[in-house]
């Protein structure tokens, strides 16, 4: 019986070593995965209506993201992947590690909307013609 247990422990150790070592040997170099941008998550939440979620990459892409004031503000362009959405802009503010959509989605904003934005963000929106003058 003792011999059986010793053999079992040896076999178990070898198998456990194999379970650990095989991926290290086969998957070389290490695989890295990227995390979804918190801004993308905020936009997906904002765009989702009636509990029907929109999937980044499948329904829309977030492109031309510009960050302002040490990443505390961001302006991004929403590009639809299919025809369910319109191309638009969003302005987001960093709140507790994530982003909160402050303005948009929209293609044009009013001057009165700019009061809640920092000057550099407002100037950028002016420069791309997103403000009704």
């Amino acid at each position: 019986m003792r011999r059986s247990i010793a053999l079992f422990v040896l076999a178990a150790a070898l198998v456990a070593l194999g379970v650990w070592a095989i991926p290290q040997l086969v998957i070389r170099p290490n695989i890295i995965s990227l995390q979804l941008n918190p801004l993308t998550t905020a936009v997906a939440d904002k765009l989702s209506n009636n509990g029907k979620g929109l999937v980044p990459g499948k329904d829309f892409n977030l492109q031309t993201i510009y960050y302002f004031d040490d990443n505390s503000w961001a302006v991004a362009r929403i590009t639809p992947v299919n025809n369910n959405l319109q191309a638009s802009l969003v302005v987001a503010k960093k709140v507790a590690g994530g982003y909160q959509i402050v303005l948009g989605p929209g293609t044009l904003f009013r001057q009165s909307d700019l009061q809640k934005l920092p000057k550099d963000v407002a100037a950028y929106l002016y420069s791309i013609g997103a403000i009704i003058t």
Partner: protein
Amino acid sequence: MENETRKSMIDQRLLRLLLSLLLIAFLVTTALAFKTKFSSGILDAKGTSPTASLEVAQTNYQARVIGYGRVSVRLKPGSYQLIYTENGASTTTAFTIYKGRTTTMSASLSGGQPTNTKPAVDKIFTLLPHYTNQYLLYAQPTSSGKPNIVFYFLAPIPVPANGSRPSQSQGNDLEPAAISAAKTWLTQNGINLDNYTFIITGS
């Protein structure tokens, strides 16, 4: 005696079962490892400086530092950007990862598109709109790249001392002076009017 034999048989069965489970775990892990290997590709990135950081970014995903100088990582197939940062300056180069293939990238500050975390905004857009009681100035981006500065004359017709309404010509007389004042204001604020199209309009 019979009981001991039975107990020993049960113990041996238990050990065999545990060993079988471990072997299954081993086989599953190995199969998954090979699946990952054959469904991914390798990025072999090298920067001109050994201390420069190399980051990988993808649309909708957060950029991630993969290392410094020279790095080799495995990625899922798809389109990515390699961000090379050296002494505070960055460049971005697009690359694609294919299944089971190695993509080799040489990154340098001169070899990619400058990375913008903040767009270059023409000063005119931070300065305008500006208005007085005579005119409103605002900026308009154009597709040609030369923005418009729009002068909007508000025609504040002053009421003469005798109380009679001034003629339209008196209002028009004020316009050149207002345009001149607007141009002076722009020049004083460091705007070179040669770089813009000055458009005059009004009510």
